[in-house]
């Protein structure tokens, strides 16, 4: 029937049956293959599948803002994006690096350093490779979602210091957590986290920093987020209110200007720091992102030490301000009668050496009051000689010198109050009696920080109340001390400090109408007159002025020091003190006027009359 002939013989059936057997064997072999993956290794592959689809993105808790005493914002945050590098897939990561480096303009070394720093962290934790991404960076990440699934964006509240250098040395700055902190944090920090590194940012880091959250999202094969699995919200850090008064701070900063030095203004009754400034300083905004290594090095090795908070860390010879301590010691110890007088010819000789008075022509016959008002060196040389170093040490230490004030800032320095015991311990020799003469006018081995001097002078004027200086409003003041001084002593010493400003003393130019500004100037020589002229410099003075008001039981005390100046303390630092004290009273007056007009029976009427009386009463 067909044009071709089909063989009639049947093929042996065993050949066909063989196909059935082979099919069964192959089926079993395939099932074994599936069994291996789906049963034996299913856990491993389930892990891989989970890692494919789930991506963990940290939600960084914003740091708490800092407010001044009236609730004005001194430090806050602004939103920005960080670029994260996911590290789950090492090979993919390695392959992606060149494109990332090119697209985000990061050097290969830099990127590898950052990966290296995080190599001991769990792989699911991403690394921040670019904080504060620019719009171009964000666009790059968005447009490369498919081919660079290792990149992810994270919204971060970044630190902002709206006033830049203002209060910078007290506020401090934030920076990336150090490897040591990472080790000690027991998992609390991840590499790249920002923590307080200095100042209040460091001191109150635990309060300011919140708890980071975590968002787990499902992503598809091109890295697009499909849905959110769970969202552990970040708990923002708590705000802190400072004792700082923005208005007074502004005055302090402006008055100090570009001069090297420091200012501390403090409520003499409570220790609340109203203003605090240090020069030269830095801009903490520079640290808020990631400070380049060379800039950091520059700041750290700058001979002007911009990172030093001079208000609490500069240990300087207090100069003549120390005479207040001497005068207090003299009266309190009763070793010398209050009627003690000295004839000042402009110099005096002790232990075979001539000591000069700052007034080369001498002050003539000088009593206790004029000694303070005119800051006679010869008078206090004699007081020092009669008291001896250990008596001086006792009263100086009692007034808080040579030890930390306990201010709520990290790295406060203690200054130095020398004593026989100290010389023995440190230098292993006996105290040279001649040293006492130098110490008596705040030179020699004695050093103090501006905050110590502010507290000591306030303590004298308030009868021995040593407040605990602090920046956090409403903090527990456990370190307040009392070093009781007799009323007679306080009266005489404060009369002297009143005279300094109001009776033609070294601070005569600072006199304020209606305000009992009192104080003491100091001009500490950094080198002898001979050395100075040899170097062609004679401006190596630290000019101090510590002022307060009113005369007894002061409300405000301000210590200012201007370093490296040709001027004397009264003229270099005095005006800073005067302006802040004036600013304080101006605000106070304005406040009571406002209160009076609000509480008065008639807003337009005679409500201002009791106000005048109030101000007048304050001045007595």
């Amino acid at each position, binding site marked *: *029937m*067909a*044009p*071709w*002939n*089909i*063989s*009639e*013989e*049947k*093929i*042996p*059936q065993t*050949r*066909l*049956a063989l*196909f*059935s057997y082979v*099919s*069964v064997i*192959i*089926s079993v072999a*395939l*099932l074994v*293959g*599936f*069994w*291996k*993956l*789906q*049963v034996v*290794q*299913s856990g*491993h*592959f*389930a892990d*891989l*599948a*989970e890692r*494919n*689809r789930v991506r963990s993105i940290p939600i960084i808790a914003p740091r708490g803002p800092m407010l001044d005493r009236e609730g004005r914002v001194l430090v806050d945050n602004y939103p920005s994006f960080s670029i994260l590098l996911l590290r789950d*897939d090492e*090979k*993919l990561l390695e*392959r992606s690096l060149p494109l990332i480096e090119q697209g985000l303009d990061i050097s290969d070394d830099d990127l590898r350093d950052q990966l290296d720093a995080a190599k001991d962290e769990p792989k699911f934790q991403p690394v921040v490779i670019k904080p504060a991404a620019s719009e171009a960076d964000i666009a790059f990440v968005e447009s490369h979602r498919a081919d660079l699934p290792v990149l992810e964006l994270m919204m971060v509240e970044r630190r902002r210091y709206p006033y830049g250098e203002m209060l910078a040395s007290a506020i401090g700055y934030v920076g990336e957590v150090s490897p040591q902190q990472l080790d000690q944090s027991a998992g609390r920090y991840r590499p790249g986290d920002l923590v307080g590194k200095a100042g209040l940012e460091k001191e109150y880091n635990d309060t300011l920093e919140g708890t980071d959250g975590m968002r787990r999202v*499902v*992503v*598809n*094969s*091109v890295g697009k987020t*499909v849905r959110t699995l769970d969202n552990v919200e970040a708990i923002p850090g708590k705000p802190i209110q400072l004792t700082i008064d923005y208005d007074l701070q502004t005055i302090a900063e402006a008055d100090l200007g570009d001069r090297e030095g420091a200012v501390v203004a403090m409520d003499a009754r409570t220790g609340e720091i109203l203003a605090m400034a240090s020069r030269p300083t830095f801009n903490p905004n520079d640290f808020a992102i990631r400070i380049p290594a060379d800039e950091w090095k520059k700041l750290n090795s700058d001979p002007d030490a911009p990172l030093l908070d001079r208000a609490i860390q500069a240990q300087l010879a207090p100069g003549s301000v120390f005479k207040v301590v001497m005068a207090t010691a003299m009266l309190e110890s009763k070793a010398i009668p209050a009627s003690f007088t000295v004839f000042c010819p402009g110099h005096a000789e002790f232990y075979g050496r001539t000591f000069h008075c700052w007034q080369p022509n001498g002050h003539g016959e000088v009593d206790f009051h004029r000694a303070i008002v005119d800051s006679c060196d010869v008078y206090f040389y004699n007081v020092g000689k009669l008291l001896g170093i250990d008596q001086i040490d006792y009263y100086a230490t009692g007034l808080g010198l040579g030890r930390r004030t306990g201010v709520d800032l990290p790295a406060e320095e203690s200054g130095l109050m020398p004593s026989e015991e100290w010389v023995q311990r440190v230098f292993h020799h006996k105290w040279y009696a001649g040293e006492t003469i130098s110490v008596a006018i705040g030179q020699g081995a004695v050093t103090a920080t501006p905050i110590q001097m502010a507290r000591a002078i306030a303590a004298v004027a308030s009868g021995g109340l040593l407040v605990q200086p602090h920046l956090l409003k409403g903090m527990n003041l456990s370190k307040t001390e009392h070093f009781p001084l007799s009323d007679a002593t306080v009266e005489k010493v404060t009369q002297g400090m009143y005279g300094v400003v109001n009776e033609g003393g070294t601070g005569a130019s600072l006199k304020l109408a209606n305000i009992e500004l009192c104080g003491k100037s100091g001009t500490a020589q950094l080198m002898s007159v001979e050395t100075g002229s040899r170097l062609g410099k004679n401006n190596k003075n630290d000019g101090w002025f510590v002022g307060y008001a009113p005369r007894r039981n002061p409300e405000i005390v301000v210590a200012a020091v201007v370093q490296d100046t040709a001027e004397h303390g009264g003229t270099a630092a005095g005006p800073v003190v005067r302006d802040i004290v004036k600013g304080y009273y101006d605000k106070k007056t304005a406040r009571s006027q406002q209160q009076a007009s609000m509480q008065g029976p008639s807003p337009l009427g005679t409500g201002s009359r009791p106000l005048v009386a109030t101000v007048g009463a304050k001045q007595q």
Partner: protein
Amino acid sequence: MKEGPRIQDLDWTLLAIAGVICAIGVLEIYSATHTSAMAGMQTRQLIWIGIGLAGMFLVSRIDYHALLDQAPGLYLFGVAMLLIVLLVGHARSGAKRWLPLGGLMNLQVSELMKLIIIIVLARYLSEVRTDRLTFKDLVKVAALTVVPVALILVQPDLGTAMVLIPVALTGAFLAGIQWKHWLVGAVLVGLMVPIGWNMRHHLKPYQQQRIKTFLHPEENPRGAGYQILQSQIAVGSGGFWGKGFGKGSQNQLGFVPVRYSDFILAALAEEQGFIGVCVVLLLYLGLVLRLVDNAQKAKDRAGMYVVMGVTAILGFHVLVNASMVIGYMPVTGIPLPLMSYGGSATAFVFLALGLVMNVHMRRYVN
């Protein structure tokens, strides 16, 4: 011919198995694509299945002897088509596999060639009068196969080219290939391997990549090895019971490559687990066993060779595809018959089953 075959003479068991496999495939295509931009694919697949079924009935109506009559013509037609594809066929997926037809439909000529080679080899081998294949016959079988294989290979479509070889090997085995010829063949292949290895630079870059990827899948996770790895992750993470219909993350989030087609078994393995894979593989085993049964009951050698040619191709497809999904074989682009989405592939399988029905219906007719 005394009496024409009737519709109830179809192999309903075979059709039922094929139908269940198709149904599972359509469901899995739906699961793999319903949330994506490709939603609605299952409907198109159903249409293809319908067209395939119609084709199957059509093919079963024409006596396979008549088809075998036309074998030389069909062969020449097939080879000519392959040549035309090579010359004028437009590039698609980087390979000149598709021929524009009627402006609407693209027929994959290679799929057609699979049917033709089954018919041609059945025709040739059924004329061999003994239970032993002579060397001369063997060379002829080889030559008939090599021509289309070579033409498909240069398209290039390694996968489809490879699929033709089992038809020839199965035919030769059934016809009674001699041990010494097995040996000669084995030696020849043994010699080809090093030559082929040295020739590997003449492979297309994507083919080189596929082989490299198969040998070292973890080396390049986002490249070609990514496909095998993601497939393995899908299969492995499915576990024993599976993640449930529409709940496979590898499948739903698009980590499994072409999850509706070549890797549909991975998608199924993820969502239905080892249990689901068992069901599917046992269905395919049932299909193959049923085909062998049909071959055994064929009226003559010609029918037997036709059925076994179909069996060889379908079995080979399942073996290679399933092996690929679990990473035992490289990615070759061979779909899983009846399950993978694809018009011409599905149509081919039904036409091939039409040939089997054809033989089945005529087993008692004399």
